[in-house]
């Protein structure tokens, strides 16, 4: 399977999901490309494009909550930090993704 074609397909499907949620792909194209490539590898290995930045626990209920785009399962947290955990998606008004730190839930008053 061709990695670039798979990345294009993931981009196409992810965009359809995240746009109605108020998110977009990060303007950092190099980061987006790198993360999508990791998702392609994870999908080839595990059958689903899991989040490249969170560990698999081999607990299906938990693991299904980190299939990209995992925004609906972590909405409150990601809305607070204006990005998803990886930084692949950011709020639609974000133009400088580097200014958004990767804060865990407890640092934004959650969990």
């Amino acid at each position, binding site marked *: *399977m061709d990695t670039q*074609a*798979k990345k294009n*397909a993931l981009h*196409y499907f992810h965009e359809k999901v995240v746009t109605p949620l108020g998110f977009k792909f990060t303007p950092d194209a190099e980061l987006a490309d790198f993360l999508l490539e990791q998702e392609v590898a994870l999908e*080839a290995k595990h*059958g*689903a494009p899991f989040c490249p930045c969170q560990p698999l626990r081999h607990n*299906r209920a938990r693991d299904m909550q980190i299939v990209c785009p995992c925004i609906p399962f972590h909405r409150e947290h990601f809305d607070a930090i204006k990005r998803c955990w990886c930084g692949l998606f950011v709020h639609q008004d974000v133009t400088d993704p580097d200014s958004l730190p990767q804060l865990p839930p407890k640092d934004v008053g959650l969990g």
Partner: protein
Amino acid sequence: MADQFIRAISVNEIVPGGMKAVELDGHEIVICNCEGSFYAIARRCGHMNAPLELGTLDGKYITCGMHCARFDATTGEALAGPVPVDLGAESPPPRLSAFLQRVADQMQHVRTESIRTYETKIEAGWVHVAL
């Protein structure tokens, strides 16, 4: 020998986002209307030979209805293999669980191959496919 174009179906027979299976000269083919552009692809899924017109077409991406393997309708490229079965929160009875595990063990050896595509052209309101 140069490919020969065969008249397949009228362009009005498939709405954008639709697929239709046809048999042309012994070839099973699915014709896809990808937002106004027509593509022809071999009918059988590159994973387990399910008929692809029973799946879905989203943009140029076909998802097989049987195990959700995914293909690019324009190139035939296999993009993703089958999606793992979701049993939800329920754990199946032990015998069913053992059966599902056996199926999963056998399925892991099944590869998802890219599939053949055919050149198309539109002439006088008809889709022609090169064989």
